């Protein structure tokens, strides 16, 4: 095996020891030294001697406790340099840093092993993976808030059925808002704590109530929210049947620090609403049901009923920038919303005044809007709907789509009034008014289309309610805290316009 151009160097090191794994590594590193053709550093066991022999080395008489250093060097190569490489490779190495950093957990299960028993899982992965992460939490006995949307309803039912068997709560999927012990999850407003418990099958509906009660609480004793438990927009549908609402009610009823429970929801399935009413009556804690629907109260009226239950008269809900607003510039009302429940509420009110209106979340199927989102009729668009958020962020984070539609609506000569919402709180844009105000200015540049905005937030929110409001007013909008009040104002302007009677 030896060629004339190489020389072998074999030495025994008695008393030297390293384990075979280390020695394999040493051999490999010495083989990489310049001038070394091949190298084998090994304990002189029978097996290793055989290997060395197979490589063409001649090993002197040895015992298994000797270390053999066998080098095959290129002609003229420096053996000392190769032996130095052996010594260097055999020298014990110490890690340069005491780095024992533990890698972050890769699943919700793994994360929950590192937290305490009461931890809540906040799931906002893409909808196709949300159920799997949520199940992790439920299996470990934890509550879940699932912000993720586009989760199949069958998976929602499966999650909530399993949760019910474990006494766990599934807030969601498609749950925008929750406040637990004062901690806001998802899109949540910062509010004064109190003794009211909210159950919300509606994220922005929940935020509207939080904002109104917080405003009222500024001047009234004992008005504040202890928990706001979201349940997901579909919870009171026939398919889901209020599974999470039932668990949320049970929790709040059992909480000695909750005096009054309020349930808010998008329009529920009638059977589910009936069952919920019966079950609420059976609880020890009084329940105020604020379920949206034809002929039902709006959210502001629900807030007023809550205040009345607590023995208070409702304050006047604030309005700013009314001076900005002139008459409607055309016959049609354009509602452009980021909040689905706010959109629902406005549509229900508009239908009472204007008759059926068109929407991408229509009150009945024949009123559905196509992809164009703008037709020759009163239109209400919810930009937070699943179909419009697939593959992009929620409009509370990315307002691009709504801003584009705002420009199109303003350019349509039939547009008489534009009705918008803007929602503050944790999770929302740090300065949403700064993004919306220039669009309002642009929309009103050609003709002064009235722009009525419901600005949902509190003075404790990170964005600051006042600064946001002032920016919108300065841009030419009329700003309400109550969406019902803003809608009423928009409807009044449209009704007064000539073309309103279609």
């Amino acid at each position, binding site marked *: 095996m030896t060629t004339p151009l190489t020389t072998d160097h074999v030495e025994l090191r008695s008393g030297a020891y390293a384990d075979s794994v280390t020695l394999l590594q040493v051999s490999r590193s010495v083989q990489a030294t310049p001038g070394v053709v091949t190298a084998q550093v090994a304990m002189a066991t029978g097996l290793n001697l055989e290997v060395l022999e197979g490589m063409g080395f001649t090993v002197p008489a040895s015992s298994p406790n000797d270390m053999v250093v066998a080098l095959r060097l290129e002609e003229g190569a420096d053996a000392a340099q190769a032996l130095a490489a052996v010594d260097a490779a055999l020298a014990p190495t110490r890690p340069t840093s005491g780095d024992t950093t533990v890698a972050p957990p890769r699943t919700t299960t*793994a994360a929950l092993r590192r937290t305490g028993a009461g931890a809540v*899982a*906040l799931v906002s992965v893409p909808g*196709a993976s949300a159920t*799997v992460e949520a199940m992790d939490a439920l299996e470990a006995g934890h509550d879940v808030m699932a912000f993720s949307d586009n989760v199949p309803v069958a998976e929602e039912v*499966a999650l909530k*059925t399993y949760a019910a068997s474990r006494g766990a709560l599934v807030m969601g999927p498609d749950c925008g808002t929750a406040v637990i012990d004062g901690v806001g999850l998802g899109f949540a407003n910062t509010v004064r704590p109190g003794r009211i418990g909210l159950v919300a099958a509606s994220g922005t509906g929940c935020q509207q109530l939080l904002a109104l009660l917080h405003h009222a609480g500024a001047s009234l004793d004992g008005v504040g929210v202890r928990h706001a438990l979201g349940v997901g927009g579909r919870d009171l549908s026939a398919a889901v049947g209020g599974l999470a609402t039932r668990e949320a009610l049970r929790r709040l009823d059992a909480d000695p620090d909750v005096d009054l429970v309020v349930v808010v929801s998008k329009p529920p399935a009638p059977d589910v609403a009936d069952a919920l009413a019966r079950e609420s009556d059976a609880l020890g804690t009084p329940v105020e049901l604020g379920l949206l629907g034809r002929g039902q109260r709006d959210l502001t009226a629900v807030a007023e009923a809550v205040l009345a239950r607590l023995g208070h008269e409702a304050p006047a809900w604030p309005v700013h920038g009314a001076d900005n607003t002139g008459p409607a510039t055309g016959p049609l009302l354009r509602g452009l919303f980021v909040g689905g429940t706010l959109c629902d509420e406005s549509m229900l009110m508009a239908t009472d005044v204007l008759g059926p209106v068109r929407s991408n979340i229509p009150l009945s199927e024949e009123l559905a809007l196509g992809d164009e989102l703008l037709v020759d009729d009163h239109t209400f668009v919810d930009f937070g709907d699943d179909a419009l958020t697939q593959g992009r962020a929620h409009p509370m984070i990315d307002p691009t789509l709504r801003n584009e539609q705002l420009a199109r609506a303003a350019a349509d000569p039939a547009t008489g009034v534009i009705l918008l919402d803007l929602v503050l709180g944790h999770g929302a844009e740090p300065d949403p008014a700064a993004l919306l105000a220039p669009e309002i200015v642009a929309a009103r540049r050609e003709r002064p289309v009235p722009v009525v905005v419901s600005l949902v937030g509190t003075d404790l929110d990170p964005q600051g309610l006042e600064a946001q409001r002032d920016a919108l007013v300065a841009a030419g909008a009329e700003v309400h805290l109550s969406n019902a009040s803003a809608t009423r104002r928009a409807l009044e302007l449209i009704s007064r316009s000539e073309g309103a009677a279609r």
Partner: protein
Amino acid sequence: MTDTTIVSVGADMFADAVAAQAVDVERVDWRPPMPGTETDLAAVATDPRRPEANRRAVEAMLGVTAHLVDVAPASEVLGLEKGQFLHAGPPIEWARTSGPLRGALMGGAALEGLVDDPEDAAALFESGSNVSLEPCHHRSAVGPMAGVVTPSMWMWVLEDRATGRRTYCSLNEGLGKVLRYGAYNDEVLTRLRWMGDVLGPLLQAAVRGTEEATDVTGILTQMLQMGDEAHNRNRAGTLMLLRDLSPAMVSAGSDAGFDGKDVADVLRFVGGNDHFFLNLAMPACKLALDAGRDVPGSTMVVAMARNGTDFGIQVSGTGDEWFTGPAQVAEGLFLGDYGPDDANPDIGDSAITETAGIGGFAMATAPAIVRLVGGSVPDALATTRRMHEITLAENPRWSVPVLEFQGTPTGIDVSKVCRTGILPQINTGMAGAVAGVGQVGAGLVTPPAEIFPKALAALAARVPTA
């Protein structure tokens, strides 16, 4: 609702929003699952049977204690007949076998006297007449590397006394030119004959003559605290076995007609083979994992095995079905002049150790092993921690001192592998690709990723429709 820790999985902005409220947030480093698995993952996640099924499978596995109850020829304990060959891994026909498995089968045929010269055995297997191949796993057995078992080979017999279930494994030949690595020269056959004539019968006398049956699971507990991970490092385990069997080897051995030289030969052979205990660790793992089989809805892997061509897994909730893909070549260090081109793809039933939560999964307790890929001690700790991401439980009996005596990660979850893309880490020896060569190195290897989505799809297909 009084503890305010939040676990956030998904958009960072929501975690940030919670952190901004001065609340503790544990962030999940979430990444999309293996491509195309979302629907199956959701179906399996919401299978109402799954949580309880996995709990039962894990509990059954952890509840098993393996006792060494006998040593006997495969013809007796497995009913193996002349011409019947067991091998490692999932089922395979001769035409697709790799070099080391061929070499071992050829050597086995010569050992059984089916041919005089092992080289003549190839034609015998090609013709397929009077010979049959069957996985060890189908006979409650496991075999390291090629895993070839023939009727005359002596087998360890392990028993779960609670149920009477038994598992089997051949006796370890040592390293280098050995049958399980595909070598079949005279030296190999001579050693095998000695093992049949002396080693097996003497061990039988010793095991039968030892008053209290050796608790193999218990030895595993101890060796894991002594630097062994029980797959590539079995030194402590081997010595503890010697400690348990030596007295009876001397006393019962002489009763059985073995002289002092035989006993000395056996003691020298066992003591000189650091891997001797591997062949007890493996059937102990199989005995435990078999207890977790056939639980409908369970996503726990109950076997990982390779035949040198295919890597296969079996899962509790899918019965005896094998999910297979191409076996990978290990990364590691090579003996002598051998290099990656000389190595055969992964082979052997020994990945049963990782399936049970030791071997590569217990890397943290045997830091020396991580050097097989040029790693460091922190790498070893990280590997064991990483395996907790894809397992269902911790084994309270098998704990790792350096990780604060945390139990080893146990019970591989098909779903978690698909979700995280983290593949089970296996420590392994490498056989030469050419029949007859023997061992060429050792290193680390993972299963082919695609077998986990295959198993997941089968689990999803079995979810009862509501």
